[in-house]
């Protein structure tokens, strides 16, 4: 039996993430996950509706997330985006979530939630 896709809201609550932007977009369904800090790899491999785990937090993550129509970005290791990045993310409707956990830990917990990385 196919399980219903997990929403961003469930991800936020299960992983105790803090919501930086896009609090009104938490009902989005998460189609899968992708993790990398290299933007070109993300462009090539992440899919629409994926949640992207990275420790990059500069302005260009917003551009990538917008172009790929990602469900949201999880920024790890306590990195905090600057005001310009947050403002741009709000403008584009991109959800940015932050955590002090490492990328490895976050991916592990996403997998436990049933979110997969397969294409």
């Amino acid at each position, binding site marked *: 039996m196919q399980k219903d896709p997990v929403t961003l809201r469930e991800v936020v609550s299960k992983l105790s993430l803090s919501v930086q932007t896009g609090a009104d977009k938490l009902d989005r369904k998460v189609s899968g996950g992708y993790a990398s800090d290299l933007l070109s790899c993300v462009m*090539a491999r992440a899919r629409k509706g994926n949640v992207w785990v990275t420790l990059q937090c500069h302005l*260009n993550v917003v551009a990538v997330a917008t*172009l790929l129509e990602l469900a949201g970005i999880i920024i790890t290791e306590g990195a905090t985006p600057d005001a310009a990045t947050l403002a741009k993310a709000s403008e584009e409707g991109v959800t940015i979530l932050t955590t002090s956990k490492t990328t490895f830990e976050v991916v592990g917990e996403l997998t436990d939630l049933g979110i997969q990385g397969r294409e």
Partner: protein
Amino acid sequence: MVTGSLQEKEIKPKQTLEVTKLQELVYELKIEQVMTKKVITVSPEDSMRHFKDVLRLNRISGAPVMSGDELVGIISIEDLIKALESGDIDALVGQRMTTNVLTVFADETVIQAVNTFGRLGFGRLPVVKRDGKLVGILTQGDIARGLLRQLEVDYHEEEIHRYRASHIFEDIVSDQTGLILRYSVKPRDFSHCGEAASKLKRALQRLGASPNTVRRIAVASYEAETNLVIHTTNGGQLTAEIQPEKIRIVAVDQGPGIPDVEQALQPGFSTAPDWIRELGFGAGMGLSNIKACSDEMSLESKPGVGTRLHMIIRL
């Protein structure tokens, strides 16, 4: 402390960076666009008994009080209840109304009224022109309905844009119709990097391209744009020529040029300095991504002259 709570409210908006579509509308819509224009009024000489019937027949909960053309007060169902409790149902409206009437101007934005409602908790606000003439009445329900109506209008407009754009190739007939979109890309401008690709993507969506095609073009044009930002001396131009059966994207710059084109095309080959890598660029996958996303791709370059990247994506 009443003032304390008022001040708190005014500080709050700073924390919410997010501006949703609804909030945007609250700042754009004028009160006259959402107010109820047909105002039911009573006169100060009417009895409270008459006022009770006015409320019942019109299914409203309050009304401005007009003496001729002049707004002299406002009266609500609460005033009626108080009159009933004190057995004063035959008192005149003029004796029971609130005389110090707070009004809003018709040409103010809805946010002014939202703030007033939030601060004072009134059920309704009379709307006046700048000359003081009563032109409408506003409740929180009017605001909610007005916002919903406007959201729907915006949604329809986007649909119409899409419809018109997606029929452009049927509407405009020539032996070879093409739509050319040109974007200038500045060097080292990382804060706008990706915008040309975003605009191109949106244009293609409106033109009705399939999601898969849009994705391939978004990735390819993003990589081409990024290359112009990172590597060029003076920036460059990204041009997309959209034809009914294919899209041709060309990225041109005037230097510095690539010494070894074969090498540059190898997946993973990168010349990026550390600071570029720290931003997440410089994986050496840009040109490979472009190749993977396009049906045809060619790269010509001459050191000291410039580079021309050409790609075709068939629809």
